[in-house]
């Protein structure tokens, strides 16, 4: 064999060995690789790394950025020490949609430890385009489709979405997920939590300022358009589904800056909140009804670090009632 042929053989063999190693790695860590392919699945996989979770928070980036489960736990311990430690996990994720939420909830069925599900009720949560992680099976029509189906047996091909640049960044959080509360979006925040750093509790918390408008389950029926009626029905059945499994559901409308008045949560969605509460047999905590100063926000609908501390404290105060009821 000539030198050139030997180099070609080594090149091809080396490449095949590296691909085989990648395939073996993906097969060994298939759960993590699958989870990295979608934000929602990443959160569920991280939740599974937590042995005990009492309160789970579901929603969009408004909840993801706005709720620190550790601060909620510490807030609960401060106001109701008799409850003991109440660990939580923030399973909200950017771009969540109603379809994503409904697909996600059955994946929590195996978790018997969850006592309360705090579900975001907001315009993006309802109207975001659905981004389900279970790919819709496509009809096998062409030779290309058949070949594409045939190569699905190779994990490197089947779970190639996990390799996308945006998804690769999720892999570290899946390995250290047990140390994370789920709100940490930046690498620095994840590293800090992993190293044991804890956020400071809210300074100068004013319970009156942060007391949400509570929409009770016995609200009067509302007249809403058919689209919203369908949304209310779906969210209502979601809450009932939790109830059937012994989990208390509560909806929260995340805080908004006082500077904006035309957000749907302050306009056309208010009747929906009442319908959701009525159909779901649960409360809706409307924090959007509050006039909160801009110092708590990084933009009109996303809380900053201090806002997160305040909102987490406020949620703890409301959760006390629910946890004592159970």
């Amino acid at each position, binding site marked *: 064999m000539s030198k*050139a042929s030997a180099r070609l053989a080594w090149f091809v063999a080396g490449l095949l060995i590296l691909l085989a190693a990648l395939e073996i790695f993906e097969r060994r860590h298939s759960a993590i690789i699958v989870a990295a392919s979608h934000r929602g699945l990443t959160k569920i996989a991280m939740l599974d790394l937590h042995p005990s979770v009492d309160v789970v928070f579901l929603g969009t980036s408004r909840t993801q950025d706005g709720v620190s489960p550790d601060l909620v736990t510490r807030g609960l311990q401060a106001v109701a020490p008799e409850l003991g430690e109440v660990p939580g996990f923030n399973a909200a994720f950017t771009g969540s949609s109603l379809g994503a939420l409904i697909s996600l909830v059955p994946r929590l069925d195996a978790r018997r430890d969850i006592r309360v599900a705090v579900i975001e009720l907001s315009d993006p949560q309802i109207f975001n385009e659905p981004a389900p992680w279970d790919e819709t099976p496509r009809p096998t029509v062409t030779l290309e489709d058949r070949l594409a189906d045939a190569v699905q047996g190779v994990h490197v091909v089947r779970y190639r979405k996990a390799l996308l640049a945006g998804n690769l960044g999720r892999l570290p959080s899946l390995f250290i997920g047990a140390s994370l509360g789920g709100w940490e979006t930046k690498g620095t925040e994840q590293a800090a939590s992993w190293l044991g750093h804890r956020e400071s509790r809210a300074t100068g918390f004013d319970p009156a300022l942060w007391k949400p408008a509570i929409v009770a389950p016995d609200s009067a029926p509302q007249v809403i358009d058919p689209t919203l009626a369908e949304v209310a029905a779906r969210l209502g059945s979601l809450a009932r589904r939790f109830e059937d499994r012994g989990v208390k559901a509560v909806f929260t409308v995340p805080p908004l800056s006082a500077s904006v008045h035309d957000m749907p949560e302050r306009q056309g969605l208010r009747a929906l909140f009442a319908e959701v509460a009525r159909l779901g047999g649960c409360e809706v905590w409307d924090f959007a009804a509050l006039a909160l100063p801009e110092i708590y926000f990084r933009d009109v609908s996303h809380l900053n670090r201090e806002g997160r501390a305040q909102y987490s404290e406020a949620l703890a105060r409301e959760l006390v009632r629910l946890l004592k009821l159970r």
Partner: protein
Amino acid sequence: MLFNSLTFFALFLPTLATYWLAPWQRARLALLLAASLIFYSYFHWPSVFLLLFTITFNYGMGRRQARVRSRLELAAIIAVNLSLLLWFKYAGFIADNLNEALSLAGTAWHVTRPPAFLPLGISFFTFQVIAYQVDVFRGEIPAEPSFLRFAVFKSFFPQLIAGPIVRAKDFLPQLRDRIAFDATLFHHGVWLVLAGLALKIGVADVLAQFADEAFRAPHTLSTAAAWTSLYAYAFQLYADFWGYSTIAVGLAALFGLRLPLNFDTPYLSASLQEFWRRWHMTLSAWFRDYVYIPLGGSRRHLARNLLVTMGLAGLWHGAGWPFVIWGLGHGLWLLMERYAPALPHGGSRIVRVLKTVLVFHGVCLLWVFFRSPSIAIAQEYFARLLWPHAGTGTSSVLTNWLVMVALVQWPLAWTFKQERFPALSLTRQWLLALACLYFVLAYAGARVDFIYFNF
């Protein structure tokens, strides 16, 4: 059949294996011809008859040209080849413009628009065969005596659809003797195919999402987003065609055949003339040798020759006025470069960098005509680019992608030349190949057509 499809590789790999196992050169050539016709028919099988007609016609006429050397006959042969191109590619455009003119003249006459159908690769194989006929007429090459060899030259599937436009004098001699397996060339071919796929799938198709969105609704863009989206289109087009050409050269190398490279980091050019020496090099050379120089080149009527050549180059890319304006824009710019010798050609590195940045942005501005479906969209896009507007912001993902592509283009192009890749250390080869495989695996799935298939 798309190079970036599984079907292509499922058929290509057995073809390649059979090719190297075949004991005789004629059997190999017959296999290449059969494979080329099958791959071509996969798009639209009736087009194969058009291809077979042009093969047979040009083979016969080429043989006759070698004997009679008639300028009139050459003109007739070129006219027949161009008439096919004219009918399939430009008849609709001509009919639309005629109807517009008739309507302006106030007549009730109306020319029926022929059904729109563009046989794939017709622009490329027409130009290739015109070059062959002219070269035979000029006596630069002998007419090919073997029908099989000529048919393979005309239909060789890696370059049939979108080039590179291979010259007969470079390609036909390679088919005459039995092709020996060259491990270095094969090795290089594997790399080129891999890198070309990564350029297409991992760069062009990703950037396409941003560019398509921007040109769909330019009125929503902020000025910054309009510029970054234009950069996205510039690099999408580059990566798409560079990727295709690289795969084509790589596939040919796997068969032991050498095709010319078509790109040499054109966005790093310090003048437009240099740009055209480094962008779609085989097309530029074709226009230089078969249009610009026969018109008189730079010896007489320079302005006319440049504008006609570049106007035709624009029209070659698409039957539409935006393409013509794009070509004429390049012609005017080239003319300015000729008549502005005060601009320093050499100079320090800083001057060269500044000139490169200027040329890149000028080329980008002209791409607006190339990409816009209509003059109105182009005007809207220019308005967003050139006057401050608020609107949709710039995606950080796009910015990251553009920086990455801008940085890797030169080292990548370096490895494509002179079979440099097999000479690298094995560790570097594996790292580069893994990086390409990463892009192919992670971003595959869209199976977007190559842009130059439309030309």
